[in-house]
């Protein structure tokens, strides 16, 4: 149903502006510069031309069909714009404009929703930062990011979504679609789950939501969705819940109840923004695993311990290396290394040692945590070989300077996610392990 919202062929930008400082300009420019291949109709009563495109005074003047309208006019004009869209037969609208429920104007928002219902128009927003579908070269948002990836990001906070998008770009993994949900007057988390569970370009759905409109429907959609869903829902403390009220007028609800709902419907709950990104990145590329045999291979003793503590305090037991493992590894691990779990290869570690360890033990373990804690050359190629052994491989890289930057970039280009600390990598392992139980 929302196909044309996220994959439009013809889009109108209502409130398009020639003034580069205005959002009405920025959004139009990003659609143009993002390489959108469909038709673009800037709308502004002043008419004229912007960025070489003919400006129409109203959508009613546009001769062709329009799939989606992006609205950036002041709030008080939005009802009239919606009426025009209805008459024109436009079925999808992204309302970027703020000044509705979040500003105390519930009535205005309800009026807009009422008009939308009358004409069967679906709305993303209002009070949002737009949408960006990289696989459709369609950035009706800001900043302009075009790197294609597998993560669908939907968020009630524009900044949270933008930060996630930027991190994914910096990591070279990109995202599939970015949706800023704003006040969620119409399209909500349930629509997002239902749509992106079927979207061929999306492997994982990352949500930042401040409230759930219909708890039972949310659970139903999540249970039906075969792709991993990672959710960050703030308002955990009493004070936080109050802040949610004034931000998007969502009902934060009881935290323990939402937690139960996530557990029962296989939703992975992130505790903070960092985890939302890390888990989304992990689930886009790594497979969840069963079993409790996680072998930690590290060049840094301290880093290994940091990982162990995170695993153990999250009820994931770290097994002790048995005689079988020890006998297989005694010729690989340097004499001053530690042959247990973690296996400490020490600062003398080479990428080849990691590969040798993995080759010798992969039939005895369920997952590897590789910690590169030094400038280890060829770590990326060795890791790619380890991945081929068929077990889940989570990588942390730190303290490796320029070599690290180079190797991490390479790993990301291979589709191997790398995490910057042993703790974050360990948390990812916990999430992957838990999801397979759900």
């Amino acid at each position: 149903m929302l196909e044309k919202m996220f994959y439009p062929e013809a889009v109108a930008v209502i409130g398009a502006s020639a003034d580069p400082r205005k959002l009405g300009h920025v959004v139009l420019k990003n659609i143009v510069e993002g390489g959108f291949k469909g038709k673009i109709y800037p709308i502004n009563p002043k008419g004229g031309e912007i960025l070489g495109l003919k400006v129409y005074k109203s959508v009613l003047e546009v001769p062709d069909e329009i799939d989606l309208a992006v609205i950036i006019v002041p709030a008080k004009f939005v009802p009239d714009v919606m009426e025009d869209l209805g008459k024109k037969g436009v079925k999808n609208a992204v309302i970027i404009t703020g000044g509705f429920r979040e500003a105390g104007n519930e009535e205005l928002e309800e009026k807009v929703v009422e008009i939308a219902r009358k004409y069967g128009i679906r709305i993303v927003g209002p009070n949002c930062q737009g949408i960006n579908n990289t696989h459709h070269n369609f950035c009706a948002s800001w900043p302009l990011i075009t790197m294609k990836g597998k993560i669908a990001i939907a968020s009630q906070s524009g900044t949270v979504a933008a930060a996630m998008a930027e991190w994914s770009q910096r990591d070279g993994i990109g995202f599939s679609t970015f949706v800023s949900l704003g006040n969620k007057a119409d399209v909500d988390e349930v629509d997002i789950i239902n749509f992106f569970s079927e979207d061929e370009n999306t492997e994982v759905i990352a949500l930042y939501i401040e409230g759930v409109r219909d708890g039972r429907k949310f659970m139903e959609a999540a249970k039906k969705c075969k792709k991993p869903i990672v959710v960050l829902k703030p308002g955990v403390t009493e004070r936080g819940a109050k802040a949610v009220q004034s931000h998007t007028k969502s009902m934060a609800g009881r935290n323990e109840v939402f937690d139960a709902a996530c557990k029962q419907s296989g939703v992975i709950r992130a505790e903070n923004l960092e985890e939302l990104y890390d888990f989304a990145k992990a689930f886009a590329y790594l497979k969840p695993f069963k079993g409790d045999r996680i072998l930690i291979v590290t060049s840094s003793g301290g880093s290994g311990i940091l990982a162990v503590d995170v695993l153990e305090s999250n009820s994931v037991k770290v097994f002790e290396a048995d005689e079988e493992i020890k006998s297989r590894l005694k010729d690989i691990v340097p004499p001053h290394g530690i042959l247990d779990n973690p296996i400490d290869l020490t600062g003398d570690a080479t990428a080849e040692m990691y590969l040798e360890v993995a080759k010798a033990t992969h039939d005895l373990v369920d997952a590897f945590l590789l910690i590169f804690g030094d400038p280890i050359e060829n770590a990326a190629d060795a890791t790619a070989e380890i991945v081929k052994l068929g077990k889940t491989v989570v990588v942390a890289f730190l303290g490796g300077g320029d070599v690290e930057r180079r190797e991490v970039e390479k790993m990301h280009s291979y589709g191997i996610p790398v995490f910057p600390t042993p703790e974050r990598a360990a948390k990812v392992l916990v999430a992957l392990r838990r999801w397979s139980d759900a």
Partner: protein
Amino acid sequence: MHEIIERALKEKRYPTEPECRKMLEDYNIPVLDYRVAKSEEEAVEAAEELGYPVVMKIVSSKGVHKSDIGGVVLDIKSKDELINSFKKLTSLSSEGVLISPMVRGIELFVGAFQDEQFGGVVAFGTGGKFVEVYKDVSYRITPIDKEEALRMIKETKVYRILSGYRDEKPRDIEKIAELLVNLSRLVEENPEIKEIDLNPTFSLPEGVFVADARFIL
């Protein structure tokens, strides 16, 4: 909707504890043995039948926290103590008293409520007066099956004690899970109940028994 809830709603009051207990029994939720007494003679007879020591509580349709208003007397060991307590409690409420054996076991919290966004929710954890302080409670959205109930129990700290800890013998966890499944069914079929407090519920070596019940409509 259960007839007890229907009647309470019609009479614009909360179900009394004896009514709550009857309803729990209808859903195969085991409650600790009890008698209701309206007179001193009835109270004495009830205590003798159950055997001392006993617990005596007021019966009230106002949904009050009985212990907060001094409406619960624990560990009554003799007829004299019983008569004194009866006089004290009947001055607080004219609806009579409920008498039950005084037992000692692992105190559990079992509860349920209707959530605005998710509907029915059941809760399980460490019980007693300090339930809000320990906050050792796990939650599930109804309906739940036995497997989900077992997962829920295993999430709590009290599970370690129930599995056998120091002088505490291991308890029948399956029975607790069944209780939670039955409670989930009660919640699903009676959404008019806003809140259910079964605190404490005792885990004894011979089984699990609800020792106090309070429904808020």
